[in-house]
């Protein structure tokens, strides 16, 4: 592995497709504009020319791209015009992802992404090599990792052996897809899109729809549109879950967790145990009543467009099986009783907090729309959310780890080792100060940035106790201090 190697030539094809995909909109525009003027043949030449150029670029890129693992480094040379050398030291590597995209699957190849922790360095992507090469590369990058650990030869043999495996059944997958609470997000995307679709949705087509479907007035029309958007986005998120998590399996080796999932694009993700930053259990509002949730693992890694990097560890798991799962796969963690709670006197603060927005929104809505005052009825769900937030908020610390639970809409429980807590913030506003309360933010590394976990209105003595715990591991306040 000390010689420089090239990828499979399919990398050029992959690159071609990537360029085409990135410039898809431009192509559409060119095609649309081009077809406005009839009888001109040059459009075809432009298209073919561009594709040829992209292919040439792909081939040159493939030719220039060379990689090797030498001593303690992954070295990559690449770039056609701007030549780049990426040297990545082994012990900085956090995560190695193996993905089979469409192009890769056609050629029976995989894509490998190697990621280091945040701060400046780029992630290295090798786009097309065989699975065996990828495995070998991975082994090379992971080896010597334990130089500082005592026994090396014992691990050599045990390393790639699967010790345990976790799967989800088809039934679980389907329920997971049904309850994927993503449609709020997708509805908002569709809402934004509908702004773009002005040319399709206008007076004329609305009139047409009304004529075609008798019995629609303005109100029922709006309701119908909303229902259609919800159904469509729900269908999308249903399919999304099926595509992403079909064929899911989680395997455990001596040092790593291996996740495989995906129907069309297969993903293989490797997470070494010593790179786990935090574990999160998220119970969606549709899933919590069924006693299920999704389990995430946070790991550090440079990700250009992403703030966080949460990897789905198990897409659907029963809450009551969580303990079993932790015992088998995450032996470093355990599931404790959350004994630090916000005090009684923050109860009404929790109830009020979700309502603050309404105080501003309701008069505004009333001013602009005749029925705007109806917004005031949102006080009821907002207060209920506040109630649940108060009930769910909680925290636990011991010398090794912490667990904390909070709710926005979904209930989230996070488990972090003390050594992985990056920063703790305590915030107080004047009202909290008067009542000796403080809000706590615990930040764990995730992706290039971090993931912030908030609990509001805790006892102030508890937040300062946790600050000290982060530094010392003591769970009690030392007497002679402060």
């Amino acid at each position, binding site marked *: 592995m000390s010689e420089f190697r090239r990828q499979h030539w399919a990398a050029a094809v992959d690159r071609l497709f990537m360029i085409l995909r990135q410039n898809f909109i431009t192509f559409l525009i060119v095609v649309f504009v081009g077809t406005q003027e009839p009888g001109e043949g040059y459009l075809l030449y432009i298209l073919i020319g561009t594709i040829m150029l992209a292919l040439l670029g792909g081939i040159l890129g493939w030719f220039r791209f060379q990689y090797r693992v030498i001593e303690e480094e992954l070295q990559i040379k690449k770039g056609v015009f701007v030549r780049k050398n990426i040297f990545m030291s082994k*012990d900085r590597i*956090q995560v190695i992802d193996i993905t089979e995209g469409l192009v890769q699957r056609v050629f029976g190849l995989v894509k490998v992404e190697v990621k280091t*922790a*945040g*701060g400046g360095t780029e992630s290295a992507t090798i786009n097309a090599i065989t699975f065996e090469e990828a495995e070998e590369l991975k082994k090379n990058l992971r080896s010597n990792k334990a130089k500082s650990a005592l026994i090396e030869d014992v691990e050599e043999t045990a390393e790639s052996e699967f010790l345990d495996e976790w799967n989800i059944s088809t039934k679980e997958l389907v329920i997971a897809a049904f309850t994927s609470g993503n449609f709020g997000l997708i509805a908002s995307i569709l809402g934004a899109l509908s702004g773009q679709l002005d040319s399709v949705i206008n007076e004329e087509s609305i009139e047409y729809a009304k004529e075609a479907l008798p019995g629609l007035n303005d109100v029922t029309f709006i309701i119908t549109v909303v229902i259609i958007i919800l159904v469509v986005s729900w269908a999308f998120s249903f399919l999304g879950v099926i595509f992403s998590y079909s064929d899911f399996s989680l395997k455990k080796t001596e040092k790593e967790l291996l996740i495989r999932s995906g129907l069309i694009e297969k993903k293989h993700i490797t997470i070494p145990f010593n790179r786990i*930053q935090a574990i999160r259990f998220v119970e969606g509002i549709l899933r919590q009543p069924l006693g299920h949730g999704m389990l995430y693992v946070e790991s*550090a890694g440079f990700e250009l467009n992403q703030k966080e990097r949460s990897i789905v560890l198990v897409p659907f798991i029963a809450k009551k099986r969580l303990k079993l799962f932790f015992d088998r796969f995450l032996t470093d963690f355990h599931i404790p009783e959350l004994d630090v709670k916000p005090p009684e006197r923050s109860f009404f603060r929790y109830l009020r907090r979700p309502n603050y927005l309404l105080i501003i929104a309701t008069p505004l809505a009333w001013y602009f729309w005749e029925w705007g005052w109806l917004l005031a009825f949102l006080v009821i769900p907002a207060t209920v959310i506040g109630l649940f937030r108060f009930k769910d908020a909680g925290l636990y610390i011991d010398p090794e780890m912490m667990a904390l639970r909070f709710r926005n809409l979904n209930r989230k429980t996070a488990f972090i080792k003390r*050594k992985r*807590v*990056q*920063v*703790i*913030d*305590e*915030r*107080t*506003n*004047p009202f909290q*100060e008067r009542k000796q309360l403080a809000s706590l933010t615990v*930040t*764990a*590394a*995730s992706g290039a*940035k*971090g*993931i912030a976990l908030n609990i509001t209105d805790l006892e102030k003595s508890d937040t*300062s106790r946790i*600050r*000290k715990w*982060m*530094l*010392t591991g003591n769970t009690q306040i*030392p007497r002679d*201090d*402060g």
Partner: protein
Amino acid sequence: MNHIPVNRIDKKAIKAWRLNAFIFGLFWFAPAGVYILVTLNQGSFNTAIFLLFIVPALTVYLLTGFVYPKIRWQRWRYEVNEDAIDLYRGFIFKTRTVVPINRIQHVDTSQGPIYRKYSLSSVKVSTAATTHEIPALDDEMAADVRNKISQLVRQVKEDV
């Protein structure tokens, strides 16, 4: 460990922040000024708009320029010791941030044009997750703090 951090940032910060607020505040101030001039010229000066929007805007501008930098300076405290970097700041919403030394990945100082004028620098501390800033220290002081932090980090270095 429970005591609030003691060190203040450099007093020149007030001047630097004032200058900064006035320069960037101009972007807010300019439309208001133009509005007053134009409407006075046209004789269409609207007292309601003046009172509702322009007066509050100008007040905010003057407050951020004159009053806020001083309060901000007064409320900024920091401390660097062998365990952690402790930052305490905020006027109405007070925030205390504690960054353990062994989580720090790198530390550097930086200086913009306004800080340069007053020979001030900021010290920036990055962990695997976040970046934190001690603003407006005197150049030498900033270098000292940076060196102290990086020395402490080297002493306790652990992996991420």
